[in-house]
Each structure stands twice: as C-alpha cells, then as structure tokens.
C-alpha cells in the first residue's frame, strides 16, 4: 500500500518540474506529424527545437512553447522513419510546422501490443512477436490458437484433430510438469487487456472442447506472444509460461462499412490405425485361438472404421459492420460456424456476437472503450469407446443382427473380454455439451489535463461461462451390460465467473534534465474467480425410455459439487527509457499476492530488466549501407507460475459418498478423510535470460531476428511421493524440483519478389521460423524426494506408465526396456537388455554389459527400464510463402518437426496374438505380422518411434476482383495437404505427451469461400 503512494508521488514530482523555466521572450511552435506515404498521423514522435522537446499526441499533433526567438531547427524523430529536420525562424507568434516522415525500414514503426501498453516494434527490448490478421493461417480455423501455428518462433501449437478440440501452446518448451494438482505449462491469455481463466489454472470453462473457442477467429486483429521473461514479467506470477495477448478488431474512422466472409469446407480422414483385415484376422484366430474363439468367427467382411467415419462438411459465416461518428468508433460482428467431424457423432456449432465501442469525451481527453463478446457453442461428441472398439471389433463379424435387442450385432456371451459394436455405441449413445461464454471489459483512459503525458487508466473486465455436458448410455448397450453399469446418465452444469479490475498510470514524456524519453507505468490489479462444478451421475437405469431427456430411477446416483475460488492482487510498475532510439532500457517489477499460496508465501516479487542497443544508429555503422536496422537485445527476468490447484494449503476433510460407506452392524456410515496439505506451497519461479539480435536490410526486403534463451524453473509444483509418515498419504503437492529449457529461435521475413513498380506483377513474400529447444529435468529434491516419478499412462494393462520425470533427461522421457532383436531383425519377445544396475566395488570388465562399476543383475525386471527419447520436438520449422500476381494470390505454410518421438499405443496394446484369446477375439494391429508377439510388450522401446515429419499445413489460392467498385475475394484452401513422416501410427503430432492411443484421426480439409466488403 505504502509502495503505491511512492510510485504516484514520484510520477507527479517528475511531471511538475515542467513550469520551471526562465522568463524571457519566447515563441510557440505547433504542428502535426504524418507519414509521408499514407498521410496518417503518427503518435509518439519526439519533436525537439532549441532544447525544448515534446511528443506527438494520438492525432499526431504537438505543441512546444517557450522557444527562444531566432533561427532554430525542428527535429522530428521516431523509430522506423528517417529523422526530419526543418529550419524555422521563431518569432513571438505561434508558428505551425507540419512534418511528413518517410518510412525507413519495414515494420519498425509498427505498434506492438505489450502488457499494459504498446510500443513501437523497433523499440522493443524483449522477445515479442506480433502476428496480425493478414498473416493468420487461412482455411477452416475453429480455435484462435491455430491462427499462429508455425508463425512464431519458439511457440509450439499442439492441436487436436477433433474440430475445435483442446489445444495446448508451449512457449519455449514446458516449464512445468503438469502432474496431479501440480502447475500447468499453458501460457496466460489476455483478451483486450483482460486476463482470461486465471481461475483454476485453465484457460476457462467449456463443455469439453477448447475454452478459447468462444472467440471468433474472424474478430481477431492481432495475436502477440511475449516469449521472454522481460516482456512477460509485467504479468508476474502468471507469466512463467509466456503470455499470449489477443486484440480484437475495432471500428475505423470512416463511413459504415459492411463485411461478409463465408466459407464451406469438406474433410476426409487421411490415416487410420492399421488393423488386420477379415482374412488376416481369421487366420490369426484359427492359429492362436481355441475352439471357443474359433466357433465365434463370422463370415462377414466389415471395415469398422468405414462405418464410423464420414466426409465432414462445415460452414462458417461472418458478418461485421463498423464505422465511426465524430467521437465514436464502433464495430459489430456476428458469426455462425458449424463443423462436423470426420468421425460420426462429432459436431461443433458456434454462434458469436461482438461489440466494440470506442468513445472520446472532453476534447478527446477521456477515451472509453467498451468491448463485449459472447458466444454459444453447441458441441456433440463421438461417444467414448467408438474409436477403440472400431479398432478392436472383429472384421469377420457383421454390423447388424436383427435378432439382438438393439438390432446391432454383438459378440456372443456378455463378457468383459468382448469388444463392443462401435456402430451401436455411436448410434445409441449421446454425448453433448453447450457452453455460453461472455467476456467484456470497459477501459477508460484519461489524459490528465495539468500534466502533459500523464494518463490514468481504468480497466474493468469480466469473464463468465456456463457449460453443461450431458451423456447418456442406454442400458441395452453391450458395453453397459457387460460392465454392470446397466445404463448411465451423466449431467454437469458448471459455471465460472471472473472479475478483473486494473488501474494504472502511464507517463510518457521527454526528459528535460537528461536526453531521451521515458515511459513510466505503475498500477494495481485485482482479479478474482468463482467457479462451481455440480454434477449428477446415475448408473443402473431402470428404463431407457426417456433417453437423455429425463431423470429415471437408477440403482446408484452420485451427486457432486465443488466450489473453487481464487484471487490475485498485484502492484506493478515499469520504466522504459529511450535515448534517441539508440539506447533502450526497460525495467519492470510486479508484486503479486495469490490466495493459492500458503500464509508463509502469499506475496512474491517478479522483477525484469532488458536493454537494447540499436547499433544501426551509431555513426560507426553508417558504412554498412545494406543494413537499415541492427539491434542487440539483452534481457533477464523472473516470472512465476501459480496455475495449480486451489486450497493445497488447507487441511481438507474430504467427505465420502454413499458408495464408500463403512458397515457398523446394520448401518452404513458415511466417512470423512483428512487429506494431504502443504502450508508452505509457493509459486514456481522461472529465471530467464534472453539475448537477441534484430536486423533489417536497407532495401527493406529482408528482416530477421535471432534469439538465444536459457530459462530455469525452480520450485516446480507437482504431486510427488512423500515418505510414509511425512504426510497423511503417500503423495503431496509440493515445490519440488528444477528444470531448464535452452534454445535458439530464428525468424526471417523476406520480400523476394517485389512486382512491378507501381503495383502488379509477381510478388513473393516468404517467412521462415526455426526453433530449437532442449529441456532437461535438473533435479527432484533429495529430501523428501524421489529419483523418478512415472507419468504417461497408456492403454494396456492397468496403471501402466510409459514415461518418467528423472533428473538429467527431458520431462516425460519415455521409460522403456531396450528391445533385443534376432538376426533377422525381428524383436525377441520378452528379450530385453539387462541394464547394468548393480554397483560393485571394482569394475567388472569381464562380464558382458558392464559399465564401469555397474554390472547387470541377471534378472529382467523394473530396474532395467531406462529413459529413451521424449515427445517434444528438438526443432520446429515453419515456412510461409505468399505469391501474388496481379489479383491472384497463392499462399502456403509448411511445418516440420525434427526429433519428436511417439509411443504407438495402438500397436503395443493390440499388436499381440494374445488378444485373440480373449473371451471374444480382439482384432490385432498389423504390427503383429512383423513382431509375432504372443503376449503384450507394453514397455518395449520397439513402440517408441521417431515421429519427425514435414507437413503442408495449408495451401490457399485466392482471387480478388471488383464488382461495382467493391472488392470481392474468392479463395480455396487445402489444409493438411500432405504429411511426410516415417511414423507408423495415426499422426506424428500425437498430443503433448506423445502417446498415440485411439486418437481422433487427422483429416485433409478443402475449403472454399469468399469475402466481400461494401
């Protein structure tokens, strides 16, 4: 609190030095600074004359008073433009000096959104990348994150093939381990200045698909990624995983304009799991099955995947109208999207509305910006088990059976060891969700009249969501009767509301005592979240007659309610110093308090400092005419991560339900369980260093940026084993462990062909990004601690884990046996390398397999597992080319991953002949034809494959023409045009954990559409 007074006092003191000037005859100069080419006003231009200095306002105007009479030179300077000098003879009158500036290098003068403000690209000292709408990925895009895939170095967008499905973004690798109640690795998302979803560590609430889907991608103006700690530290305890700033489109200063963009798309599946066909399956059952299995074989030839996949159609319509009055800019937008999935049963539909309103009051001193957007998403999900049963169901069996209760064929008997008919599941079960979400804010910026350059900002934001999910599995389904569930009905009605209040002062002024400009920001932020998670589960339904529409009497009913609340209070400040666009320094500090931390660690402080040196401005660089810009950046900062579970600090007494009661005599007693807690829990802390170089060629054709970074995260929050008696149970959520990410990022943009002078001709713009990241788990604390924590659960066996957290290797490295092969190159079943695990006092050179003092123990058991590669790509490459020829445009994006490994779980789970000896035979993965395995080898490294790939993510052809003088653009896009990979499974981008297990298959999508403006 006291700190806040100091900051305000300092700001005011600084600005009130202005009136102290000598009393002698002077004149006043005023004018407007514009861009030579566009005639647009330029704000923030430093105008100096005779030692007097001013910055231009948003309308480009400036006023300098008290200028000594006589000859003088007006200098106007801003990054990205050539400085302009204009001689004047100052008289006692007010003189008007307008200056037009000429752009010097591309993009340097572009305004980039940063936390609590914006900056010229050329003056930024952190690793910040902004992608504007014209560079977004085209085609069928449902989730906003997809817009920037392959566009930003250091950013991995891990998509889900299901339309609108969950998407993860990793900025410079994972900084957390994402286990249990531990912290998440997702970045902070800020939409129009409102941080979304800091409620429970998630991006927000949805009925099951990506929570950011409420944002219509067509309404997005730009997406900015703050990659390094110096840029993101202004967001303090939420910033360790990077920050993604999303700005929506606003009205323009012009007559009302209408825009319509519409498209339709068709998708086909590209790759499915490779299962045995009917003949191969029959042979396998005849060879390995017993009489019981052979007798069940049918004579059909059914391709189960063909029965559940489809050509998926989609449409997307967006309408926007924008305009402005004298003091008001506005934009209204509406969108409707409907997209089916390539697996039947999957649909997503979205209705979205958005209003942005900017209003200027009191001679433009007060800007009020209101933004409200809302959406309704209706999601239908393919019922659980359809994909896995399509893989497992015997291809010799028919789909239909007129004699069965459901009309669908099921294996005889009613046993747990028979797969279900996926078509019956698809057609009889339902699973759907609906999400309402609205996010809005009111921002007021007041330019305080008596202090030039001082602005007060108020930002009030809200984010509310209501999500219902409902699934119904009728009791007649084979999957229900065989498990004894006998019909299930699940409903949830989750809701969440977040409020944010932010106030900050911003002071931007030239300094009078020393050269240069200073930009100060100081503020306060308060945000809190309340979420409720009620749900209802009924099992053993007495009737299916009502379907999902009614509540029927059930054998077991379980109701749940959970309330989650969270609050963050912050004080922050930042100073940017700019000396003639040559030396740039930025320092920020944020102090955060979070309700998630225990009483001993409620508050944390997160400082950052960065510096830039624009070498190209130095005289010694003037010889290098080919470079228009060369900037060296150095940055260091500390950020935090608090996106872990609420209430870890409280000793909670968990109530039992009606199915976990204790029998006392003839009574059943509901129980209560004291749970593990940790009063010492505090945020994860990431310290990051970044060194970068930005350059631009003077012909403005090539710009580039290269960054090296190293960040280490300490106090990792995850749920780890603790010693017996050290807690109430064997796991607790703790700050335990340390990891490091290091890497290099490269971004290049080039205008390779510039077309004809004055327009037309062939142009070619190319962008290229490359990112290398090396993650290493450094430490899991020794006391209390463990050497390794198993992660990565797979299908097959129960509780089988395939990945590990272990010091010295990347997080979630695969943890497997080293497979031995026979002379023909065939894997030997159960033949694993006996790793040297026993330590002797003397080296054992004679024994085979010895390493130093370690020798094999002669037994193959869990001690012989070892870390082996990991799912994260070592290198990510992205390339976009845009060709235009007069009105024709061709655009494509390529993406490549090198060194990402995937565990083929479909192969490991179903690639063994033992699967046909189940009560009813399971179909087999075709890998069994190579391996001949007769029992499952889940932990063999045979199934861990190099999944490096090259994919053409999209290719677009567009043609723009005028109809009655209004531009019309028609376009066609192919997404996922091709993938080149050596990986044998469904998709080499198998989620964030690299486990390919009955995942939603990838599709190739053809989209055609048009946009008109009038």
């Amino acid at each position, binding site marked *: 609190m006291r700190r806040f007074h100091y900051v305000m006092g300092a700001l005011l003191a600084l600005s009130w030095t202005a009136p102290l000037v000598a009393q002698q005859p002077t004149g006043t100069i005023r004018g407007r600074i514009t861009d030579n080419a566009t005639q647009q006003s330029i704000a923030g231009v430093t105008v100096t004359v005779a030692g007097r200095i001013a910055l231009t306002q948003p309308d480009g105007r400036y006023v300098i008073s008290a200028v000594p009479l006589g000859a003088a030179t007006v200098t106007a300077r801003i990054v990205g433009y050539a400085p302009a000098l204009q001689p004047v003879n100052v008289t006692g009158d007010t003189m008007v000096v307008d200056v037009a500036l000429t752009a010097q290098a591309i993009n340097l003068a572009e305004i980039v959104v940063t936390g609590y403000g914006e900056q010229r690209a050329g003056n930024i000292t952190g690793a910040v990348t902004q992608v504007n709408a014209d560079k977004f990925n085209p085609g069928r895009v449902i989730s906003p994150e997809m817009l920037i895939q392959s566009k930003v170095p250091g950013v991995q967008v891990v998509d889900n093939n299901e339309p609108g499905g969950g998407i993860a973004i990793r900025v410079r690798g994972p900084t957390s381990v994402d286990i249990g109640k531990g912290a998440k690795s997702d970045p902070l998302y800020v939409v129009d200045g409102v941080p979304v979803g800091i409620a429970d560590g998630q991006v927000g609430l949805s009925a099951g698909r990506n929570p950011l889907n409420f944002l219509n991608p067509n309404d997005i103006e730009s997406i900015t990624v703050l990659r390094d700690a110096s840029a993101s530290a202004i967001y303090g305890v939420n910033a360790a995983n990077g920050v993604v700033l999303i700005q929506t489109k606003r009205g323009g200063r012009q007559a009302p304009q209408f825009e319509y963009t519409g498209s339709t798309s068709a998708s086909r599946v590209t790759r499915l799991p490779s299962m045995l066909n009917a003949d191969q399956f029959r042979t396998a059952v005849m060879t390995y099955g017993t009489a019981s299995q052979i007798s069940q074989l049918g004579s059909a030839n059914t391709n189960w995947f063909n029965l559940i996949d489809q050509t998926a159609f989609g449409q997307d319509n967006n309408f926007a109208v924008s305009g402005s009055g004298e003091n008001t800019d506005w934009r209204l937008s509406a969108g409707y999207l409907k997209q089916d999935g390539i697996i039947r049963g999957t649909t997503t539909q979205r209705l979205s509305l958005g209003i942005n309103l900017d209003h200027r009051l009191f001679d433009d001193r007060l800007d009020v910006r209101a933004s409200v957007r809302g959406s309704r998403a209706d999601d239908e999900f393919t019922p659980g088990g359809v994909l896995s049963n399509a893989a497992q169901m015997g291809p010799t069996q028919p789909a239909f059976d007129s004699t069965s209760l459901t009309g669908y064929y099921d294996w005889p008997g009613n046993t747990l060891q028979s797969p279900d008919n996926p078509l019956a599941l698809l057609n009889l079960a339902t699973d759907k969700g609906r999400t309402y979400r609205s996010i809005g804010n009111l921002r007021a910026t007041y330019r305080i009249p008596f202090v030039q350059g001082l602005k007060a900002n108020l930002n009030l934001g809200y984010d509310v969501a209501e999500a219902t999910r409902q699934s119904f599995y009728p009791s007649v389904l084979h999957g229900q009767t065989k498990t004894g569930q006998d019909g299930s009905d699940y409903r949830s009605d989750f809701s969440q509301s977040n409020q944010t209040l932010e106030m900050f002062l911003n002071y931007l002024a030239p300094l009078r005592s020393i050269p240069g400009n200073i930009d100060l920001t100081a503020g306060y932020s308060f945000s809190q979240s309340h979420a409720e998670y009620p749900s209802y589960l009924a099992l053993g339904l007495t009737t299916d007659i009502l379907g999902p529409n009614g509540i029927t009497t059930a054998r077991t009913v379980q109701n749940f309610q959970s309330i989650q609340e969270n609050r963050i209070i912050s004080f922050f400040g930042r100073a940017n110093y700019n000396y003639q666009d040559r030396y740039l320094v930025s320092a920020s500090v944020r102090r955060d308090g979070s309700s998630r931390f225990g009483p001993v660690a409620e508050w944390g402080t997160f400082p950052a400092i960065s510096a830039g040196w624009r070498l190209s401005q130095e005289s010694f660089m003037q010889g290098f005419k080919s470079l228009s810009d060369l900037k060296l950046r150095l940055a260091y900062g500390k950020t935090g991560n608090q996106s872990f579970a609420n209430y870890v600090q409280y000793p909670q007494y968990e109530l039992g339900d009606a199915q*976990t009661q204790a029998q006392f005599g003839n009574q059943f007693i*509901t129980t209560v369980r004291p749970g593990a807690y940790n009063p010492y829990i505090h945020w994860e802390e990431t310290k990051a260093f970044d060194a970068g170089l930005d350059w631009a060629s003077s012909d403005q054709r090539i710009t580039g940026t290269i960054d090296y970074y190293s960040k280490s995260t300490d106090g990792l929050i995850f749920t780890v084993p603790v010693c017996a008696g050290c807690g109430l149970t064997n796991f607790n959520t703790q700050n335990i462990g340390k990891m490091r990410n290091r890497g290099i990022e490269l971004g290049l943009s080039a205008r390779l062909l510039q077309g004809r002078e004055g327009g037309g001709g062939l142009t070619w713009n190319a962008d290229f990004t490359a990112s290398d990241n090396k993650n290493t788990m450094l430490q899991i604390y020794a006391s209390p601690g463990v050497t390794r924590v198993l992660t990565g659960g797979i299908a097959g066996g129960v509780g089988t884990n395939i990945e590990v957290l272990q010091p010295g290797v990347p997080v979630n490295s695969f943890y497997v046996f080293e497979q031995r092969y026979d002379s023909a190159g065939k894997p030997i079943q159960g033949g694993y390398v006996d790793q040297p695990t026993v330590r002797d006092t003397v080296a054992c050179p004679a024994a085979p397999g010895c390493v130093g003092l370690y020798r094999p123990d002669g037994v193959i058991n869990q001690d012989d597992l070892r870390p082996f590669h990991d799912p994260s790509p070592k290198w990510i490459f992205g390339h976009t080319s845009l060709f235009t020829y007069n009105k024709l445009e061709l655009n494509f994006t390529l993406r490549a991953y090198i060194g990402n490994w995937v565990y083929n779980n479909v192969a490991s789970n179903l690639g063994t002949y033992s699967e046909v000896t189940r009560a009813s035979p399971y179909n087999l993965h075709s890998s069994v034809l190579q391996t001949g395995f007769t029992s499952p080898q889940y932990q063999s490294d045979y199934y861990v494959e190099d999944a490096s790939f090259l994919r053409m993510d999209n290719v677009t052809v567009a043609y723009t023409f005028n109809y009655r003088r209004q531009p019309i653009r028609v376009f066609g896009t192919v997404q996922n045009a091709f993938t080149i990979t050596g990986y044998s499974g469904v998709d080499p981008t198998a989620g964030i954990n690299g486990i390919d297990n009955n995942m939603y298959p990838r599709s190739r999508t053809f989209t055609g559409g048009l946009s008109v403006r009038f």
Partner: protein
Amino acid sequence: MNRIRTTLTGAAALLALALAACTDLTLEPKSTPTDATAFKDPGAYQALIARVYTGLAVSGQQGAAGKPDISGIDEGFSQYLRLYWEAEELPTDEAVIGWGDVGLPELNTQTWAVTNSFVGAMYYRVFFQVMMANEFLRQTTDDKLDARGNVNTALRAQIKQYRAEARFLRALSYWHGIDLFGDIPLITEADVVGNVPQPSTRAAIYDFIVSELNAIKPDLPPPGTATYGRATAPAADMLLAHLYLNASVYTGTTHYAEALAAAQAVIAGPYSLNPVYKNNFLADNNTSPEIIFAIPQDGLHTQTWGGVTFLVHASCGGDMNNTTYGIDGCWWGLRLKPEAYNRYAAGDLRTSTFFTTNQSIAVTSIGDFHAGIAEPKYQNVTSTGAPGSHPTHVDTDFPLFRLADAYLIYAEAQLRGGGGTRAQALNYMNALRVRAYGDSSGVIPDSALTLQFILDERGRELLWEAHRRTDLVRYGLYTGNAYVWAWKGGVQAGTGTDAKYNLYPIPANELIANPNLRQNPGY
C-alpha cells in the same frame, strides 16, 4: 467542464486508494470442510473412525473409484485388501494370477524388484492406515473435545470406544507392516505430521502392538450383530494370537503359551463354526456365526475395484458362467497352483467350489487362465442362491479372522509347546475335518496330528484367506529349496529362492524419501 475534470480526477484517485487497500488474500475452501470446521458437526467423530475402517475396504472417497487414498498406482490395484491378499497368496503354493500388469507377474514367482509398484503400494497402504488412526487420536484428545464444547457425555463414551478401535486398526496394519516388511518406522499420534520418521525395529513394533492390544481390549465394543464390522475384544485376541504364534519370526523369542491362551480366549467367545463351510464366503456371510472380524463389502454402499470384488471376478474365467457367481463378467485372473489343489483328498467338501472343466491341474503358462484349477471360493450369491445387490461390486465380506483359524492356532501352539492339551488340539482339528467332509470320514487319529499336518490343514481350511505366506515363513519353507512349488523362483517346476524374499523390500522411492531407513538384507 473544469469542475467535471477535477471531480473525475479526484474520484479516480480516491477509488485507486480505496481499492489498493484491498489486499486480503484469504479464501478458504467452501465445498469441503477443513480440520478447523469439520468437528462443528458432532457426527464427524463417527465419520472419521468409519474412514479408518474403510481404509481396509475401499480405495478412496468415491465409489467404486475416485478421490483415491494413495497415488502412484492404479486406484483399483491400490486397495488394501487386494494388495495384502496378493502379497500373502501369489508368491506361495496357493495361487497364480494371469495378468501382465507391470510388477504383477513377479509376485507369482518371488522375483520382484525393489521398485515393484504393488509392493510399494502395500507399504503406503499400511502407513495410510496408521496416519488415519493417528489423526483420529490427535483429533479426539480430551483437550480438543473440551475446546470444541459440543461433545456431550454420551458422545464422549462413544469416542472412547472409537479411540480403542482406532488403536486396534493401527495395530492390525502395523502387524501387516512388520510381517511383510520387517523393520519399519513406528509413528504414533505423538509424532508431528511432516517430520521425517526415524526407523524402528520389527521387535519394537511387535512389543508396541502387543501392549496396545492388551491395553484397549476393555474399551472395545462388545461382539454381536450390532457391532458387526467393528473391532471387538475377540478380534484383538485373534490378532494377539497371530502375533504370538509368529513371535519367533518377529522377535526371535517364542510365545506359544500366549498364542494358545489368546486362541482359547477367542474360542470361549460367542462364535461357532458355520455348519456349511462355503457359506463363510458368500454374499450373506455377514450372518455366519464363525466370523470374528470381517472387512465388509457391499454392492450398494461399500464399492471398490479391489477387495472381494477383485477376488470374485478374478477367480472367474475360462468356461465359467459369470452369472453362476452373481457377477457381470469374469476377469480371467486367479487359479490354484497344483500343490494347493493336490493337498485335498477325495470327499473333502471344501473343494466343492473348484471349477475343473477345461482347466488343467498343471499351470503350464501363467498367462493362460485354463492352466490351473479355478477356485471361485468367493461368490456374489447368497447361501440361498440369490445374487448380490450389485452385479459388479459384491456383497461378500472378507473374513479376516474366523473361528476355524483360532482352532488351528490352538492346535499348532499346543504342538509347539504352548501348553493346553493334545486331545483338545485333536478335537479342534477334527471339528474342522468333520465339517469339511460332512461326516467322520475325514477324522484323523492322534498319530496324524503333526506340525506338517497342521500346515497342510491350514492350507486346506484357510485357502486364499491371506495367511499362506506368513504360515510358510513361520515353517521356514517359504524361501530356499526345502519346499519348492510350481513357478517358485520363476520356473514351472519350481526352484529354491533367496532367503531375502522372506521380507518384501522397503520401496526404492521410500529409501530416498526417508534417508533414515535401511533396505532389508539382500535387496
């Protein structure tokens, strides 16, 4: 205009100051109680002691799975009784399980590693029980009860019983702990949660359990149908009888006289043999007059994927019809090793549940359910043939202690020099034999009553009741090559094993988490 500006500026500044003052970060849980709020409801004492009991019966706070008690292993696998049963039966001559889940196959063959996840989970289950019991004792001290001010006299009397029961349950798990793992830490309610425990010894914990049990006996609730499922004085005597019988293993000193006396005390109680042996293992076995302490299971109220649900389902497979056993499906897991099957003579009705169709006696392959005789001893149908209340989660309770076991302990303690009379021992033995054969055809003469006979009879009478490993260790036959059985040591014919396997290893992770501990010899 100026006035408006000034007002606005002033208002903004005031607002800023007012809100900046708001720095309260406290947000307590609302939808779950905490230790500070839970006992505002006087029912919490019963709920908490009930939770110590359900630590044996379920795996978490949500049935049948969800909100698990311990982590690091599949929740169904982590259930106390399931783990204990597997630890006591799979490495012996009685049972084999066909599944390939990581760490499970090694239990069949005495070849486990220090990282074995089932062994580790059992260790943490023991201490989960200990910590729950300790928490109950900490929360129910006189000081705390006085301070809360909402505990009346009747409730205080109840709580006194509950405290004795908590100590019984803690003693029970400590017995399992020292029996399976040897030297482990001794943690009581006096220890501060969060402190890294100091090691103790098997013998010291043995002494602790014995003194605890003797101390609490008077405070435990009386036996009877009203206290079914709860610990009574005869249950404490039964536990003492087991401790004394195995005292030479735990401490190096024998206590056969005490074992015999404790067994006698149980036999003097209100229990009698159930005339029909198999009814002790059916869905209505809560009505059996023979069961002294059971882990109750209930299809509707006490659900788990472990416990007897596991035993009923896993024993079913092959050509067996699941509906015969009152369940929805078979899990194709457990069979008899040939030695257990061959121990029975013709006419022994205890084999009446064996399923032999398309099942071989020899276990030629551990993974093949058809290899080995199936034994659906535990069934989810009642003694009248009606199915249990739920087709997945069974009503069948697990008889942890029953009267027949007391008879066998008496006989063994007598033969080992614990006093009593040999005639009485023979009487008890033949009582079991008469029930087993339905007539006197199985009665043995005095000359046949040997320690080996008693071990075999324990194998027959207490088959798959989670006693076998302890019995074989006491007889010195569990490891080594004095007695080998199918798959002992990892080969079908069986081979001698290292004596280190008499104890399970302290889990590898635990040794790092608690540097005060030492690994058991040989690992």
